[in-house]
């Protein structure tokens, strides 16, 4: 009896993209494709991409394996293949045990049915037998905290209740192998805390878990080893801290840059011309994800087509939900402003340094503004760029709990024992 739960050899998945193949067609598309193919040479390149290629790996029984990578790296494809939702184009995988897949919460929920009915339906869809459902029913209801609303149609549920219920059902699956895709990306902080807690339980019960996430703290917390996927191939398999570092360091999150070429608003901004807005990590690389424990820079590159007096440029930092965090202008220091009363025609870059341990983990947006106070606002873009702060290692992160608020500084605490 082998100790390997998942044995994958050379798994690959190819998709056809472009008008010829992505998704459904109509007869007309097929006919035109057939006719044009007639004229084309045999073996002409078709628009295909390999979403996954040459994926070979083993997962031992009881192991919790993380899978990280950019969007489009092949993570979901791999999970879909292992869940048998889609077929591999090549390669083979041997799975020992039942696979429970959490690719999305609330699969099959019907808004007209009550919570009770949807529990049965969803559980059956996920593969539970009726007897199992009945056995776990009370636990599921308790976990979801929806007892008073059990017989109300779920279309009347708040989104929080809906998610809790959906996750509660999925969390009580009893498979040998659990495959989880980004379910932590939805829901509020409370929900995420519960999810993480439950996932931790499942992992400690000795089940094999494959965990895909963009949340590096969760990956570090739950997994011992992690696979990094890059453009459909396994780039690295290492202990989780190492893998996470590799992922963040290689700047593999999408471009942390925003440019304004050909933007219609540029005409009205003249003589001010915005060029680019970037987020750079401590090593100067353009990234979209930064660690809260290291300082990073936000830089705004622009050009002036003539001398501009009294100019200031600055950023508006806000949470993804739109709550303002801070506003800061490059000429906030009055002495700096005086020395640059007139900015001559030319190309400029205004950079600000955000200190370590200022921002809390989460998604933030950066807006820019270039103006002369009470004279004219040259250019504004309120949500120009989005970036992510990863809170691994931030103060207090050894307790897995979400902390509300956009800032999370390392305040200096003193504890004195009072006597007498």
């Amino acid at each position, binding site marked *: 009896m082998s100790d390997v739960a998942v044995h994958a050899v050379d798994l690959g998945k190819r998709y056809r993209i472009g008008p010829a193949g992505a998704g459904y067609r109509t007869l007309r598309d097929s006919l035109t494709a057939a006719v044009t193919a007639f004229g084309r040479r045999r073996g002409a390149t078709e628009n295909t991409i390999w979403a996954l290629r040459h994926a070979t790996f083993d997962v031992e029984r009881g192991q919790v394996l993380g899978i990280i990578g950019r969007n489009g790296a092949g993570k979901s494809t791999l999970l879909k293949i292992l869940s048998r939702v889609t077929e591999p184009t090549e*390669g083979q995988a041997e799975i020992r045990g039942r*696979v429970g897949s959490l690719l999305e919460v609330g699969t099959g929920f019907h808004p007209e049915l009550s919570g009770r009915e949807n529990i049965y339906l969803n559980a059956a869809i996920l593969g539970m037998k009726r007897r199992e459902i009945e056995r776990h029913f009370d636990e599921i209801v308790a976990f979801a905290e929806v007892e008073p609303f059990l017989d109300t149609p779920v279309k009347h549920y708040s989104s929080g209740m809906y998610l809790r219920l959906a996750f509660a059902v999925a969390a009580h699956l009893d498979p040998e192998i659990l495959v989880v895709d980004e379910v932590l990306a939805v829901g509020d902080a409370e929900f995420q805390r519960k999810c993480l807690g439950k996932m931790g339980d499942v992992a400690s019960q000795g089940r094999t878990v494959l965990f895909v996430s963009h949340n590096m703290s969760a990956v570090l917390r739950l997994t011992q080893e992690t696979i990094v996927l890059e453009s459909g191939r396994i780039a690295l398999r290492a202990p989780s801290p190492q893998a996470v570092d590799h992922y963040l360091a290689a700047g593999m999150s999408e471009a942390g840059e925003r440019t304004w070429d050909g933007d219609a608003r540029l005409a009205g901004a003249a003589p001010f011309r915005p060029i680019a807005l970037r987020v750079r990590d401590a090593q100067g690389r353009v990234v979209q994800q930064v660690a809260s424990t290291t300082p990073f820079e936000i830089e705004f590159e622009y050009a002036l087509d003539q001398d501009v007096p009294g100019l200031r440029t600055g950023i508006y930092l806000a949470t993804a939900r739109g709550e303002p965090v801070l506003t800061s202008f490059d000429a906030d220091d009055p002495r700096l402003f005086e020395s640059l009363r007139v900015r001559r025609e030319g190309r400029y870059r205004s950079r600000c340094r955000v200190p370590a341990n200022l921002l809390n983990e989460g998604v933030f947006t950066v807006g820019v503004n270039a103006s002369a106070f009470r004279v004219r606002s040259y250019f504004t873009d309120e949500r120009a760029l989005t970036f992510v702060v990863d809170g691994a290692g931030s103060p207090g992160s050894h307790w897995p709990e979400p902390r509300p608020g956009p800032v999370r500084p390392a305040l200096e605490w003193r504890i004195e024992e009072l006597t007498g």
Partner: protein
Amino acid sequence: MTAASSSPPLADPAVTVIRPSRGWVSLHLGELFRYRELVYFLTWRDIKVRYKQTLLGAGWAILQPFLTMVVFSLFFGELAGLPSDGIPYPIFAYSALLPWQFFESGVTKAAGSLVLGRNLVTKVYFPRLAVPLGPVLAGLVDFALASVVLVGLMAYYGYAPTAAIGTLPAFLLLALATTLGVSFLLSAGNVVYRDVGYLAPFLMRLWFFLTPIVYAASEVPPAFRGLYALNPMVTVVEGFRYALVHGTAPTLEMLAVSTAAAAALLLGGTITFHRMERTFADVV
């Protein structure tokens, strides 16, 4: 994709092998049986949801064929004066409408079911055949409800049940086989070619006139009866009339041709479905 043998999770769990399937795919009927509870739940869901938040609820299952019968009796029976084999027109029409509604509503609902259920298809593994199966089986409930009217009509016109009624299950089975075959074909086709979704109602309308619902099969010249019976619903309808309202029994030739056609539809539909199944999640 090939699956392993027994499924219960034991100390030495079953091995599932995932690999690209080649060529002919086996029908996996065993797997469908293992997932029978899911089929039950999907059917139950369809039934429950069908009439939620409607005023008349399940009354629609009765009202629809009933009103259709009334309209047909007025226009085809009275106005057009179509001959009805000596049977009063309302019950002549209704005895045909009953299995026809089952067929038409089953096919129409099943045709779009995979696309409608794309969330399921792209996220969870289960035999995809369960998806179109749901609306078809749910139609049996509507069928049962609509039969109540038929019983009433039989009493009204004084048609006492005879021994012939014993053949009813056979004709119902024929209708079920035809409905399933066409449903599998259309639902699978619709995933790849959305034209099918537009085609289905149109196809049903044509099929309606190819079936002796508003007219009698005896109107069809004997030379064409064989060809005519290639539409299994012909024999179903004639069979229903024979079993319930003392109509003439379908000939042996009709029975043979229709059964063969229904079997071909069912087999062909299931095979086509399975061949296309592997691409559903990618294409839907």
